[in-house]
């Protein structure tokens, strides 16, 4: 697991330090589509929160969705 964390950290450092220009793929005047609801990572935020909670009760997996879930006695 540590190597994944290290890999992700190195990738982040690369973004921060070196290859910034190559990562500018979209100019500010080209970003109109990303303002639309259907282009958001969570177009329906409340549904995402609720279903994440439901799945945490019904399944044994969690994580990967970068969202906070408080503890409860359902699990």
């Amino acid at each position, binding site marked *: *697991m540590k190597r*994944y*964390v290290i890999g*992700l*950290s190195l*990738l*982040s450092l690369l*973004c*921060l330090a070196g290859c*910034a220009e190559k*990562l*500018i*793929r*979209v*100019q*500010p005047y*080209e*970003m109109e*589509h*990303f303002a*639309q*609801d*259907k*282009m*958001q*990572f*969570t*177009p*329906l*935020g*409340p*549904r995402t*929160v*609720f*279903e994440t909670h*439901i*799945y945490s009760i*019904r*399944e*044994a*997996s*969690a*994580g*990967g*969705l*970068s*969202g*906070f879930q*408080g*503890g*409860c*006695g*359902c*699990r």
Partner: protein
Amino acid sequence: MTRKILALLVACMLLPVWPVLADKPRDGMSYVFSFYGDTGNNLVIAPSVLLSKKLTDTYYLGANLGVDAITSATKKAPTAPAPPTSGEEDEEDGGAFTYRVPLSLYLTYDKDNDTVTGGGYYSYETTYIGRSLFAAYTRRMNLNNTSLGIAYSQSFDYWIPDRTLPTDNRSERTLDLSVTQLLSPRQTVQFTYTALRSEGFLAQPTDQLVEYTPPLYAQYPDNRKGSAYAVRFITLLNEPTSLHILYRYYRDDWHIQSDTVNIELYRDISTSVVLGARYRYYEQSAAFFAKPLDAYTRSDTLIAVNYRMYAFHSNTVGMMAIIKPSKSFLSRFDADKVKLKLSADVFNTSSHPNIQYQYKTDHLTGIFTTIALDYDF
């Protein structure tokens, strides 16, 4: 039952304006009503109010208050010598609501390319107290083409059980690392890694094998380390249609591995309506201590009863809608600031003998819906 649901609906209409942990700072409020029900006689009714208020140019105060009415959460364990006919609850327990009151408060600092959020969470239910602290930092760079995120949460939960447990504590730590990158004016991708650590009493205190006298209760290892790796991709197929694809791989030291695939399609039907459809597939393997229920003996120190510790798969299909009311319909409000978000999903698990044992049905079919009304100040 109908009367209770109606009473709860009325109660949540009376709730004053309260709050949410949003993805990005928002100056507005949401009123959310969520519902879950399944063939195992489990029911959750969860109204909540979310508020994120801009205090200054850089600071936002947020809060989220809800009331969850639950018929299946932390059930009262049957007292000996009255074991029910299954490991779950009897019919009377299944129809009785327990209540959970979750509250979270957080403060967000947002300036230029940096967003920092810190806050706390507290929830109360009769047999469980949830307490957490969380913090998140997001850094935008490369003309907003790249975003790096790190989030951490630590819980200090504890059970208030009806029977003596090895420990009443349960704590969970979660670390999220994410990278989001725009690929083109029509495509974006996000990678997320999550490290999860759990300690304490991690089973359900009420899960039990009732064929034994006294019953054998579920007992899991007292710690767990898990990792999740996810990639999300969004592309604009054409001007009115976008496609969302998620893949997540999870594994932990209980030998549970899972794969999750989620596909969503959104389409602008008109200037005021977006419709969506989704399909989700989930599959997991069994924990190393999961055995057929009739194979457990009193000498077993680890016992799994709930089907979640066994291999199964599930499918979910759903529909979503985002509606911006017309200006004529909301003549007294600024219609551009109001959105109604609706969703309804049906999920279906594969058949499993433990589901039959606990819920008296060979598989679970559930429906969950969310109605959210967003208003931006």
